């Protein structure tokens, strides 16, 4: 690299268009300041002390390592105790952690202290060069490229390049198709249905007992799952699989609340309930958390994930937060003294999606 090429990239040099009239009026870099020796450089006692400190740290590391091994075998893994500041803990875990930390920190602090006190601290200067290659190297590279291009006959037979490009551009598609196609089933209308069917009993989650209207008291909220997916009935031989239960919990969980019929604002809401007892999907219409917090006084349902708030007395319309749609209502009635579903939800439950309309 020639001298003047570097000079062009002097920090104060300007590109050709840059006009700075007083460019010459700048301070000059004074160069490296004089080096000041450390205590350990000039004082032999200080150097010895530094050496002792470093060897002590390395020694502590060895002790920590041994401590870990001993503790691993000798301390009772069930040992629990109250430790100052930390609280009630598994002491075995704490001892292992502390000895490991000692083993590692001893090495680390020792090495750094060694570097700082004993190894030379004179600064070294290394030259830096422009990243760009010089003209000659660039010309040579251009020569290599064009030589390769011509000897492959690409300049005379352009179809070679076109078809090769096309083939290389496309060859990954079968693999991509296989993996994408196999990842999952098409959604179909799966999101439009839950497991609720006509006549299915409402069951208390998690006990799995059917619910009579008298059991629903004013102001309390009952968590409900469909019959067959909770409690005893779900364990049988021909009961649903663990996967089906999880999916039912994810889309068919319902909250049951008794309201004063006078408070209910819409006729539809009253009609789909039983004497003020109404059932709503528990799955938030924002991104799907269970809406689990019920405020008795205000009859508001609050989603703990992003605080969407739904008004129970107004057909679970959103009154605050990032959700847009009301929680869907499950139409219920009484059959043989127990609460049952009249039908599935009339609209898809849970988060919004494109095809939902």
């Amino acid at each position: 690299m020639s001298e003047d090429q570097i000079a062009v990239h002097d920090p104060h040099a300007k590109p050709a268009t840059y006009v700075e009239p007083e460019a010459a009026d700048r301070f000059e870099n004074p160069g490296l300041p004089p080096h000041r020796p450390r205590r350990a450089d000039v004082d032999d006692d200080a150097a010895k002390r530094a050496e002792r400190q470093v060897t002590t740290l390395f020694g502590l590391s060895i002790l920590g390592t041994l401590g870990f091994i001993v503790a691993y075998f000798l301390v009772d893994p069930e040992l629990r105790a109250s430790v100052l500041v930390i609280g009630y803990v598994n002491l075995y875990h704490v001892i292992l952690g502390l000895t490991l930390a000692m083993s590692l920190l001893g090495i680390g602090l020792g090495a750094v202290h060694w570097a700082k006190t004993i190894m030379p601290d004179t600064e070294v200067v290394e030259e830096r060069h422009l990243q760009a290659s010089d003209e000659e190297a660039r010309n040579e590279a251009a020569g290599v490229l064009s030589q390769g291009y011509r000897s492959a006959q690409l300049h005379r037979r352009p179809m070679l390049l076109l078809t090769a490009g096309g083939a290389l551009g496309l060859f990954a598609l079968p693999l991509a198709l296989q993996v994408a196609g196999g990842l999952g089933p098409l959604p179909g209308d799966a999101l439009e249905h839950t497991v609720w069917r006509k006549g299915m009993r409402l069951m208390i989650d998690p006990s799995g007992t059917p619910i009579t209207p008298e059991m629903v008291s004013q102001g309390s909220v009952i968590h409900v799952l469909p019959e067959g997916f909770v409690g005893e009935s779900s364990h049988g031989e021909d009961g649903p699989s663990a996967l089906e239960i999880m999916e039912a919990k994810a889309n068919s969980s319902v909250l049951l609340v008794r309201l004063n019929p006078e408070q209910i604002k819409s006729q539809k809401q009253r009609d789909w309930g039983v004497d003020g007892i109404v059932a709503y999907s528990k799955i938030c219409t924002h991104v799907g958390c269970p809406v689990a917090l019920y405020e008795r006084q205000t009859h508001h349902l609050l989603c703990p994930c992003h605080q969407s708030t739904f008004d129970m007395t107004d057909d679970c319309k959103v009154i605050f937060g990032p959700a847009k749609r009301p929680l869907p209502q499950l139409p219920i009635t009484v059959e043989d003294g127990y609460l049952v579903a009249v039908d599935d939800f009339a609209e898809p439950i849970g988060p919004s999606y494109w095809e939902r309309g």
Partner: protein
Amino acid sequence: MTTIPQGAGAVRDQSEAATETTADAADPKLPPPVVWADERLGVAKGFGLFKKVFPDHWSFLLGEIAMYSLIICLITGTFLTFWFVPSMGHVIYDGSFVPLKGVGMSEAYASTLNISFDIKGGLLIRQLHHWAALLFIVGIALHVARVFFTGAFRKPREINWVIGTVLSLLACIEGFAGYSLPDDLLSGTGIRAMNGFMSSAPVIGTYLTFFVFGGQFPGELIIPRLYIAHVLLLPAILVGLFAVHIFLVFWHKHTQYPGPGRTNNNVVGFPLLPVYTAKAGGFFFIVFGVTALIAAVVTINPVWAYGPYDPGQVTAGSQPDFYMWFSDGALRLLPGWMEFSIFGVTFSPQIFLGSLVLLPLVWIILGAYPFVEQWITGDKREHHLLDRPRNAPVRTAVGAAAISMYLVLAVATINDIIAIKLHLSINDITVALRVLFFILPVIVFMVVKRLCLSLQRADRELVLHGTESGRIMRTPEGRFYEVHEELNEFDRWHLVQHEAQRPLSLTAGPDTDEYGVERPVGPLESMRRKLSEFYFKDRIEPVTPSELAAAHHHGEAEALPGGQARAIKESVERADETAGLRSDDRT
């Protein structure tokens, strides 16, 4: 002026030369294993690498923290795979954690409990892994901030900046995937939210969720799939990109802070062997040790306390790990009225803006920044000397404003906790944060820019008038003044070395020709001019030698020839005589 011996080595050589002149030092030989390797691989040729020089500064350690926590994660993560079962298969727990005995749960959750309670030291490894992962992301964030605010992303390092931004995005995704694996109630709620984000994607939403989850939520495939992404796919990309990232640091040679003796054409610091090997190697053990210390005494993510995932249940105050807070916060702030239906399809921008759009957008803006700044400045030179943040006021202010936006979103994630702790209405907090998201960045921008300019002015002041010595003098006429001490040339260099970038209107000529007629400029170019004004209109130029001379001699003493540092130095030595004049005048 006392003479100081040059270098510790020189001092030691003087004292040791007499005592131990071993043949070893005079005529070093390669140890046999190295000879063996050299005969087969020619390794001796590469030993020059050990002489490579690295500059020293505490802020360069931030990237090292990230690098070392990545290594810790790889080590501890490999351990965890020996016991973790990435399956959503249903089991009844029968381990030694009594409160959950007999409870049905996924194998993933049961094996996590097993690691925590039945594998000796398993809890330590789990906590090390989680803490190191958090440290990894904190280290990356601080490192990104360091590189941004010092302008280390400028040419020729733009590529490495882009690689770095990709790394930081992958780190967050990797963290989220790992966090989701135990299949506890908290992380399951996170996956449920992820399912919700995906379904909000226009057109392809439902297909996306069905393909990722292998069917309806929750299905049985998401944990195994996240697992392979977490332990193979993402780490492979992370480690590969990271290797390139580090290689480029070697290739470009590390940037350095400006200072006496440091120029754009050199790198000043300590050699790899022995100093950097000891310092950087030692620092690895310090990071590892500190992580072990934290893992020993501070519980993180006690999954046993949350219970297994159940889609019908949720814990109040559920937050993701901190690096996802801004996205979760955005979801809390975006109002529901943004959703609308038209032509039978639903748009839910309040969901996809805060998740599917926000995440890539943040990283695209970050990755594009160096190119945008270069376009505005028109500066095509290589930069190896870092900027002091105050010397690039608008860049610093833009960065600070972006951080303030991030913080508003992050704080929004804990709006429910704030509401409970401070007895405020959560609705009020949310509304306030919505407003703050737009207003705070503007305020922060203005304040930080002013602050940078003030700091630059203070630098000028210091160069021109020196430091207060505390000595009070009385002039023959009976006036009092405080003696000011001139900065020495080394200290002064820090404050005068930079160049103040000027707007294009100054550097690229005026917008009008010599007859005052406006030159035609395209819309892009005129935007570039406007941005350039925005960036560089307000600026403080560094002190020049003539300014210093003028301040020095109160404008009446002999003028110094421009750029003559020698002459300045002489005048510095006469500082005491002239200090009176200068200070007196100022009172």
